């Protein structure tokens, strides 16, 4: 029991408990709502042609997968804020290696949650969406590394951003720019239709690259022609997602430490006080 990095094993156990709680009872409806709604939208787009050879659902499905990976960032921000408000984070802080276990648990739970979202979209999608090219081993290899880098990058950024947000209300505000980013990231409309400066903004963040990476994994080569530079740009995808992962992994523990250093019983009580005032 006393070997290994302290808190890691407990962190995985914690992640499994959180995962069970996230998918039980009333939570289940909320969890299933968005992926199922997105799946329905993809299904309805089967009849919208895009060019002579394809329909819109073929492009939206992989892009939506990328989007749900990116949403991991918002999940981290929201849950960090909620756990700060109710004192769960303080409990972690006053327990030896509790913060490490907490973070591992959070990343395990949110990664598994996102995998569940992707399964909800992908398993039916593979059946009814035409024009996908998933027979190659390369497509699943690409899917795997885009997914892996994407989970690390977006959740590390989530921890970083979440460290500056102390209330659920603040977490709500964070979701606005993220939704904006999704809108300009070529997931629902081709990025080539946007003004050039917006294209640059989109390309600075992981959402665009997650969508692109997922399209490169699941689509045949030909549609790459309508992407920017007429290519799937796998090297650029790996570099941008890798860079965000690296920056996130370096910065997140630093700002998280700064944030948890300031957690105390009276702060938790004061935040709850404010929250109650808003309700009342």
């Amino acid at each position, binding site marked *: *029991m*006393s070997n290994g990095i*302290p*808190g890691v*094993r*407990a962190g995985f*156990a*914690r992640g499994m*408990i959180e995962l069970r*709680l996230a998918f039980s009872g009333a939570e289940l409806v909320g969890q299933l709502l968005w992926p199922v709604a997105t799946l329905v939208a993809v299904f309805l787009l089967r009849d919208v042609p895009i060019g002579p050879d394809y329909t819109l659902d073929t492009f939206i499905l992989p892009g939506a997968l990328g989007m749900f990976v990116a949403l991991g960032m918002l999940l981290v921000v929201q849950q960090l804020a909620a*756990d700060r408000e*109710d*004192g*769960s984070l*303080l*409990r972690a*802080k*006053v*327990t*030896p*290696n*509790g913060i490490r*276990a907490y973070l591992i648990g959070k990343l395990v739970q949110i990664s598994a949650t996102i995998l569940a979202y992707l399964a909800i979209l992908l398993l039916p999608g593979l059946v009814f969406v035409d024009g996908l090219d998933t027979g190659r081993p390369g497509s699943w290899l690409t899917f795997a590394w885009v997914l892996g880098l994407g989970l690390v990058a977006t959740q590390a950024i989530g921890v970083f951003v979440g460290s500056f947000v102390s209330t659920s209300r603040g977490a709500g505000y964070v979701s606005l720019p993220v939704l904006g980013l999704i809108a300009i990231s070529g997931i629902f409309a081709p990025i080539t239709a946007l003004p050039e400066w917006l294209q640059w903004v989109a390309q600075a963040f992981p959402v665009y690259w997650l969508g692109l990476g997922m399209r490169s994994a699941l689509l045949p080569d030909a549609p790459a022609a309508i992407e920017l530079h007429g290519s799937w740009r796998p090297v650029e995808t790996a570099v941008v997602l890798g860079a965000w992962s690296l920056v996130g992994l370096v910065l997140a523990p630093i700002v998280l430490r700064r944030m948890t250093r300031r*957690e*105390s*019983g*009276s702060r*938790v*009580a004061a935040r*709850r006080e404010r929250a109650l005032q808003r309700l009342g």
Partner: protein
Amino acid sequence: MNRPTRSVDRPVIEVEELRMRYGAVDVLKGVSFEVRRGEVVALLGPNGAGKSTTIEILEGLRARSAGRVEVLGVDPAHGGEDWRARSGIVLQSWRDHAKWRVRELLAYQGSLYARYTTERMPRPWDVDELLGAVGLSDHAGRRLSALSGGQRRRLDVAVGLVGRPELVYFDEPTAGLDPQARRDFHDLVRRVSRELDTTALITTHDLAEAEQLADRIIILTQGRIIADGTAEELARQIVGADEVRWVQGGDRRTRLVADSTAFARELLLEHGTAVSALEIRRASLEDTYLTLVREAETAAMVADEQELQGAAR
């Protein structure tokens, strides 16, 4: 850096000239006290006296402005995870992990202490044994959100104790509990602190609670310690006088004196039968404490008004 100090003579908590300042406000103005191994000490004072600030500095949750602090032989500002494993914290306002089950949370918290087990101190506490000790065996499978206030507080004690801490903090442990739950809670704290031979520091604004639970009471008001001792010592120390009332020649008279017996003897020797309705009232700690609280609140109100006036200007 965090070598455990095993010396028996060394106090578990040493605080010397502790100062804390937020902006221009001095919350702690040079606080000094010690807590010895096995002692149960109450830090008593009205709201805003600086109790929570003091305890949060000791817990390592807050950086102090000045002074020397050692808890279990380590400066809390530099306490590592192994130091943290030796103390437990019971806050008044825990409402975390609302969806978890009682047993689940206790087992999870306990698992984080396992690596800090020593020959003398096997960690963590057995979960079922602990659930039994706090009277929650029947609720082990319930969600935390389904517990009553008193049950929740008992779970908080269990979580605070699950790592078999050498030192436990109780921060306003019975705030918001009904009288019965309060009494149960007091019984529980007295029992576990005796059984586990744990050192405990309790903050409270309630004198009765301090008298119930603590071997020693430290009264903190306005950021200063004004008294430190057992309840009887405090009664002498801060009251220092008994109230003597009598009627003499139709007049009611009242006098505060240190030695009421000697005073009464002299009074009767001098005036004899002219004295009637002689009455000596024992110094009451409660009266004195309430007076202190009133003074502190008045001072705080004055400070608030000054602040308001300052803001209006």
